[in-house]
């Protein structure tokens, strides 16, 4: 990869040229191409990840546009993953971008993530997140959980055997009911934090635990939580969603 475009990123001491080179060899799978996934794929393409798969089976709809930064009115009615592949490839032709028009299921998730160095959460439901969590823990693939609601986002980097998994904190997660409110600029902000945690994981740096950010009230919380010793997934190896 031509590193000239990253000249001001390489001088960031947390990354350096070595870090940039490492990122250029990594493969990221982003599940979901909506508010979080489209913004994450945009950020990671520009940052110089080696290859990115974006998995989504939805079409772009008008109500998606206010919270994304890649899609426009001409894209309405076309597959999100295809638009992302086309547009992101023009941003950096050296990054291998692949849009995969599929709904992630327990039958196909193995093949979707088999070469992933990390999985990024761009989904809009807990069922798929638990499925990602199961395959992550089972196959030892790190992933980043991210969710948005109204003006609040949550992010947690999950590194199997090292950090808590989603199930460790999941006893009280509410299921999605109806249309969720989301402030338009929230997904971009949370995707940015999600990508930062992803880069840290890819470079084997220390993660920041569970992050809660309310962009309206400017609350930023970081919790260094521990693994749940009674977790059914990462402690007892029960993968109920797979």
């Amino acid at each position: 990869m031509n590193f000239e475009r990253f000249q001001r990123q390489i001088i960031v001491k947390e990354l350096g040229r070595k870090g940039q080179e490492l990122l250029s060899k990594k493969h990221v799978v982003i599940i979901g191409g909506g508010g979080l996934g489209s913004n994450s794929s945009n950020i990671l393409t520009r940052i110089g990840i080696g290859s990115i798969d974006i998995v989504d089976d939805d079409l772009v709809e008008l109500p998606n546009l206010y919270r994304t930064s890649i899609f426009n009115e001409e894209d309405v009615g076309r597959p999100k993953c295809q638009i992302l592949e086309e547009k992101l490839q023009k941003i950096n032709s050296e990054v291998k971008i692949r849009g995969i028009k599929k709904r992630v299921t327990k039958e196909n998730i193995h093949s979707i993530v088999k070469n992933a160095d990390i999985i990024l959460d761009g989904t809009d439901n807990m069922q798929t997140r638990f499925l990602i969590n199961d395959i992550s823990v089972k196959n030892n693939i790190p992933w980043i959980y991210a969710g948005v609601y109204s003006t609040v986002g949550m992010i947690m980097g999950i590194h199997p055997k090292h950090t808590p998994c989603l199930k460790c904190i999941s006893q009280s997660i509410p299921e999605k009911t109806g249309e969720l409110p989301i402030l338009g600029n929230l997904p971009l902000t949370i995707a940015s934090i999600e990508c930062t945690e992803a880069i840290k994981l890819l470079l084997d740096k220390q993660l920041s635990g569970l992050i809660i950010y309310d962009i309206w009230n400017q609350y930023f919380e970081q919790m260094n939580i521990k693994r749940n010793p009674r977790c059914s997934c990462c402690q007892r190896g029960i993968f109920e969603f797979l």
Partner: protein
Amino acid sequence: MKIKVKLIGRYKDITGKTELELKINNGDTIWHVVDVFVKQYPKLEKDKKFIMVSKNNTYTTPDAKIENGDEITLSPPVVSGG
């Protein structure tokens, strides 16, 4: 006994506090802490089932017992939009 409870996110806004003291009995469970908290702040009743409670930085089940000296944190539920 009295326990100190740390509050996260919008719970700080609603209560106007970063930490509060709750009176519970030795051996009470996490569920009891949530119950006492919500009774003090009825506005949070709809959160009751979903409040995330950690004990000593570990998320546990609602039936986990509280002992003297435990550090409790209450945070809003994990969100699920994409």
